């Protein structure tokens, strides 16, 4: 077609609009940060008006919320869940323990840097982050999607060996399916 790139552009704009106004978060409360998710979803803060709603299974979800610390045992499940999600997919690290270990900085069972293991788009600081902070994190994610820089799956694919090496360093018994999409 003659104006292929232009029509592609229009499609891209609509796509980006749809993607940023329909963020389905996976129902996986990995840590204690999950306590503020109900508050965020209910009457006072009502995240659904921004298009944020829960999704029950990884296949349907767009956003993986890492609500706080990740233990080694959970990390294995989180990686698996992340790889099952369909792109475009986004990761929000939630709370200071996802950023740098927080108060568990010397614990033998929690990871200290989430972005060593899966690509993170937005970090929300605080312990707990308030619902306002969560909403602002979603706003930030929407901005990133609009700017086209929320490209977690691409980064994951490009630096796949690096991520895998980091993951395998911690997870000793490795029995994963291959990541092939």
């Amino acid at each position, binding site marked *: 077609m003659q104006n292929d790139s232009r029509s592609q552009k229009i499609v891209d704009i*609509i*796509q980006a*609009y*749809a*993607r940023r*106004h*329909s963020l*389905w978060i996976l*129902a996986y409360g990995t840590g204690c940060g999950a306590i503020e998710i109900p508050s965020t979803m*209910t*009457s006072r803060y*009502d995240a*659904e*008006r921004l*298009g944020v*709603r*829960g*999704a*029950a*299974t*990884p*296949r*349907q*979800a*767009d956003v993986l919320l890492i609500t706080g610390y990740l233990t080694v045992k959970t990390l294995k499940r989180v990686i698996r869940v992340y790889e*099952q*999600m*369909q*792109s*475009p997919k986004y990761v929000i690290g939630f709370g200071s323990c996802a950023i740098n270990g927080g108060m568990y900085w010397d614990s033998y069972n929690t990871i200290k840097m989430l972005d060593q293991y899966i690509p993170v788009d937005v970090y929300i600081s605080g312990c707990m982050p308030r619902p306002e902070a969560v909403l602002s994190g979603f706003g930030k994610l929407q901005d990133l999607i609009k700017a086209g820089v929320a490209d977690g799956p691409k980064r994951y694919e490009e630096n796949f060996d690096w991520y895998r090496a980091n993951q395998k360093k911690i997870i000793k018994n490795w029995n994963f399916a291959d990541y092939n*999409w």
Partner: protein
Amino acid sequence: MEILQYIFGGIITFLLAFVVGMTFGGTRRKIIARIQNRYGPPIYQNFIDAFKLFSKTSAVHHGAMHYMGPAFLMVSSVVSLMFIPILRDGGWFPNLNFHGDLIFLLYMMVFGSLGMALGAGQTGNPNSAIGVTRGLAQMVGYEIPWIMALVAMMIQFHTTSITGLMDVQLQSGTWNLFASPFAFVAAILASLGMFRYAPFNIVGAPAELASGPASENGGKYLFTMMSSHSVFAFVKLTLFADLFLGGAGNLVELLIKTFLLYMIPVLYGVVNPRYRTEQAVRWFWGWPTVFGIIAIAYAVWST
């Protein structure tokens, strides 16, 4: 030329059903949000969701039947749609009706669920499999009052065609809602199960089965399922309006009637928890079936 008219009319009908179904779904979300003290998403939120789902990659597949499941659902919805008279006098909506199309429709409406059952079975996810068995069990439940209601109508008005039933209402001047009230009650109670809102959302019950048959379906599969559900909702509502509320002369009338009918399962669902499977089936075989029997008796008596 007639065939072209049919094709264009079919496309227009489908688009209308899609848009109305999606908007009703969005309105439902808004109404539920307001009941829950929330502001709620915009009414067009379902379109955004649908487009987003459509634009997602669907890299995973579990074999041919997994592809076919949502497609079956869509085919069933569209074919049912084609046999429903949208407006009383047709207009540019085609109507493939024939004598006995009501019976055909009964089969067609079940067909989608069966196709989905096959598709969900292939995903290998136990939640899907359990969800499908629950869905079939529930279908056994609500099909009985539903068929009874339709049989009562057939007996009462001596016709097995939807347009025939609409003509009856036009000639007599009263809606079937008043002419055969028991059939209407039985059918409405059965419709609570057909819409699968609470208390009969046992198929995709989130707290129990993740999302049931749709567990493994994301992206385009979920888009197909979502749009076919929307179309199917429109089919059911229009069928109810045709059978009991005298059909619609124009689109506005149609929208008002279907929206009012839609509110019955929606509002009943907001304030109720979910039944267990066997409780749901027992419920359908209770009062709805009793109303169905009364409807048949009334029909036999009144003819």
